């Protein structure tokens, strides 16, 4: 399909919107209501362009221009909204660059948009990163001819603990309303009144926790703002670090905004393959721990009391403590959200000292990597014909997976890609899409996903799979029928069914997958469980699993909090003084995952990079550097001495390439994964105590505490 934009001819796939055509041609069109992952509505009228098309005679030939002999272009008498218009063969489009009419129309529209918008940019958290500000500067008149008072409304209207609404600033683009209806499928926000009195509000007593924070990202003005980051800094003052969230195994792309060494805000970053443009509320608002009560120096137990010390003193203390133990007795445990590089370093040290007590936590004791039909990706989920979720509470295990399932229910349309990125106005998306609940079966405990599922079956534990294979109820029969009858099917497995699952479970699943042609997506227990399991980070012959850390002769525990100490020397490496750290002999300060460089592996097997945000953490060190120090104390040469050597070793062990990964990550098929009994069950729990900001540190003493975070919002409520 050939389209002419401002005189430039370009070739575009059919179905492209006029606005995408302009962007594809390298031009620019201002817009507010359009959004890459929401339906086009054509409400803001900023994206006006002039368009004209050739017309055909009855015999199918083009009407020719007498003067030029070329097909004559019939121009629309008025400018058209390009976000809702499809580009057609031979269409001519004029943006403001080549059309005076368009430039005037856009400037006039900007004047209207600004009529009632307050000029409080200096106090607005959006200032400096505001679409309206930018577009007013680029396309506006620079002055208003509106001589009346602006509309006055509530400027401090909390929609929930996390989101604050400034009704004066709203420009009625309806992005937030459409977001809730189209993405998480919750009709909790809508316009009230009409005409010039329209405002947004909720009648539900607050927005549901789960995915509400995304509306602060997509608001083109400062009407909806992140209450946790309120007034923490101006947009140009933040250090923006693009990185990956490691709260769960989805691995959403995020941007971490830090100022003066404090993590102040997290916003979503687009990754079409993983999280599209959305992140969950835990990932967005649960960052308080990164800047609060951090351990910044090592602690050493002297006369029964933990005392601040230097790294040298700490190393000496470890060396002294290890004199009473064999190096092979030192158990090494790490959190399953650690990076691949850290895992490699720990495994190398375990090999070097010959310790059999190695483990990562949380994990399951079953490997489901070698399923028939290959591994399922998140895009597979979004475009599947049917999904069966077994024993998963997605709100706690992988919230974004829930959104991708809902995307499947509303048609599974992935936005097309252009050279300029994802489509700005995907004309296939419709407002208030009809969902097809019959495409989703949920087996397990009642969760938020239940209300969207056409087939629901209560079930408990890992016999759910067995029951599905040999259905004993009508619901399970329907679920099996859905699996068998549909073309592209995905089975999603969660903690309830994976805890305690063993080899026979894998065989059973494999049999079911073969029978139905389904792809399997098992949600790993930890953010990087999938990557760490590919390394040999499980108890070896005679080794103690993490569950039996109390039996270990001596232990090094990295960022895990079992609440007990080992029998002998206990070294804890953590970012905070946890209960376990309080029991330890030596406490080494750790960095959080926001301050690391490295690689994580998400539930699809996608390698995603972590970057280091500028947070102040004193002398805290990541696991690789810490293990170097521990090696020194143990008197062995550290096998891995830095990120580069960790990556080299990982590449050698796993046969992959690390470093310089593309932004959206790379899928890697792991050949093998190591399993061993865990001896405890994993209870997924996304929100934890430390993710809540402690109000005292945020609010000056002379202020009444804001009703910010009351009871821990675990899971979702709709």
């Amino acid at each position: 399909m050939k389209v002419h934009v401002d005189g430039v001819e370009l070739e575009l796939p059919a179905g492209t919107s006029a606005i995408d055509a302009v962007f594809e041609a390298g031009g620019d069109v201002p817009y507010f209501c359009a959004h890459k992952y929401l339906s086009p509505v054509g409400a803001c009228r900023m994206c006006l362009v002039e368009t004209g098309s050739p017309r055909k005679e009855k015999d199918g030939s083009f009407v020719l221009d007498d003067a030029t002999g070329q097909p004559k272009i019939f121009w629309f008498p008025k400018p058209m909204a390009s976000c809702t218009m499809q580009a057609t063969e031979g269409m001519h489009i004029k943006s403001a660059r080549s059309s005076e009419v368009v430039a005037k129309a856009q400037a006039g529209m900007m004047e209207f948009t600004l009529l009632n918008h307050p000029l409080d940019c200096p106090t607005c958290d959006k200032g400096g990163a505001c679409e309206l500000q930018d577009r007013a500067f680029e396309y506006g008149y620079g002055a208003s001819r509106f001589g009346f008072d602006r509309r006055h409304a509530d400027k401090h209207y909390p929609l929930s603990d996390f989101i604050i609404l400034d009704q004066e600033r709203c420009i009625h683009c309806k992005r937030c309303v459409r977001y809730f209806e189209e993405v998480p499928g919750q009709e909790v926000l809508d316009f009230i009144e009409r005409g010039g009195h329209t405002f947004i509000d909720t009648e539900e007593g607050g927005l549901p926790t789960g995915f509400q924070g995304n509306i602060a990202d997509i608001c083109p003005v400062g009407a909806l703002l992140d209450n946790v980051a309120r007034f923490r800094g101006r947009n140009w003052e933040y250090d923006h670090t693009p990185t990956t969230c490691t709260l769960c195994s989805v691995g959403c792309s995020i941007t971490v905004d830090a100022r003066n060494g404090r993590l102040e805000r997290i916003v979503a970053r687009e990754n079409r393959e993983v999280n599209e443009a959305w992140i969950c509320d835990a990932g967005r608002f649960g960052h308080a721990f990164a800047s609060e009560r951090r351990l910044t120096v090592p602690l050493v137990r002297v006369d029964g009391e933990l005392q601040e010390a230097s790294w040298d003193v700490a190393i000496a203390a470890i060396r002294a403590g290890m004199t009473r133990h064999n190096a092979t007795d030192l158990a090494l445990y790490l959190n399953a959200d650690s990076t691949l590089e850290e895992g490699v370093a720990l495994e190398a040290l375990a090999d070097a000292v010959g310790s059999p007590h190695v483990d990562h936590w949380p994990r399951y004791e079953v490997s489901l990597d070698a399923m028939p039909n290959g591994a399922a990706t998140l895009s597979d989920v979004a475009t599947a014909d049917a999904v069966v979720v077994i024993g998963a509470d997605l709100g706690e295990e992988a919230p974004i997976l829930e959104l991708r399932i809902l995307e499947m229910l509303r048609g599974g349309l992935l936005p097309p890609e252009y050279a300029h990125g994802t489509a700005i106005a995907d004309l296939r998306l419709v407002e208030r899409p009809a969902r097809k609940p019959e495409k989703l079966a949920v087996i397990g405990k009642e969760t938020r996903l239940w209300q969207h599922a056409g087939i629901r079956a209560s079930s408990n534990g890992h016999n759910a799979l067995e029951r599905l294979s040999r259905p004993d109820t009508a619901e399970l029969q329907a679920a099996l029928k859905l699996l068998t009858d549909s073309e592209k099917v995905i089975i999603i497995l969660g903690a309830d069914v994976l805890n305690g699952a063993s080899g026979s479970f894998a065989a059973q699943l494999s049999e079911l997958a073969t029978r139905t042609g389904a792809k399997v997506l098992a949600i790993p227990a930890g953010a990087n469980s999938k990557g760490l399991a590919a390394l040999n980070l499980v108890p070896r012959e005679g080794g103690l699993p993490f569950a039996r850390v109390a039996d270990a002769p001596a232990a090094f525990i990295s960022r895990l909090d079992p609440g007990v100490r080992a029998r002998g020397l206990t070294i804890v490496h953590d970012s905070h003084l946890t209960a376990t750290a309080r029991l330890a002999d030596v406490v080494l300060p750790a960095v959080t995952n926001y301050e690391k460089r490295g690689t994580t592996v998400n539930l699809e097997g996608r390698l995603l990079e972590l970057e280091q945000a500028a947070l102040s953490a004193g002398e805290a060190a990541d696991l690789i550097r810490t293990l170097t120090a521990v090696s020194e104390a143990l008197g062995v040469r550290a096998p891995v001495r830095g990120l580069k050597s960790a990556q080299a070793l990982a590449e050698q062990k796993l046969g992959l390439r690390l470093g310089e990964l593309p932004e959206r990550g790379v899928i890697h098929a792991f050949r093998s994964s190591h399993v061993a009994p865990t001896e405890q069950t994993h209870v997924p729990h996304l929100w934890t105590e430390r993710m809540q900001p402690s109000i005292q540190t945020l609010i000056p003493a002379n202020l009444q505490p804001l009703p910010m975070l009351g009871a821990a919002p675990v899971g979702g409520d709709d």
Partner: protein
Amino acid sequence: MTYFADKQSLVADIFSRYPDSPQGRRSALMPLLREVQDAEGFVNGTRLDEIAALCGTTATEVRSVMSFYSTYHTLPTGKYHLQVCSTVMCSLAGSDELWDHLVETLDVQPGEVSPDGRFSVQKVECLGSCGTAPMMQINDDGYYENVTPSKCARILESLHADLQPLPDNPVPVTVNAEGRQVLASGEAIGASITGLGQLPPITPGGEA
């Protein structure tokens, strides 16, 4: 207490008008709102929840839809809710003066109810009574047209005595009983529908 609990047949009747689908269920929203308002004079928050549950949506959506339309009330109105058309045709016939008169004599402002609980007033847009302006509507009962000062006084007097006069729905009759139109001069002119050559019904299989 729920409003629709003992009105299952009414609810079923309303739902029967629309398709048996989530979208069709949603269509019942406006009729249900109308039922509540007719019975209670306004729609409060509890009723929003109830209607939302019936229509398979949320109270936010119900409030959103309700606030869009101008004839639903969230606050109680007076026993007699006087709606005065203020659009241009009525305005040219004196509805602005009628409005001022009502506000003054009843001592009530829009959004308020008079102290005796009898009256509330609302300016409404064109009610389609332009040929018989000025006009007002009382509650949802019907139109009172050609409201001249003396007629207004009569209506108010009756309302004060709680004797609401029947609404008048004068019909501009321009065609006489024979089916001929009558000129302003009183002369009936032209043909009548009874004289028009009606086409014979077509029998199936016949030449059409």
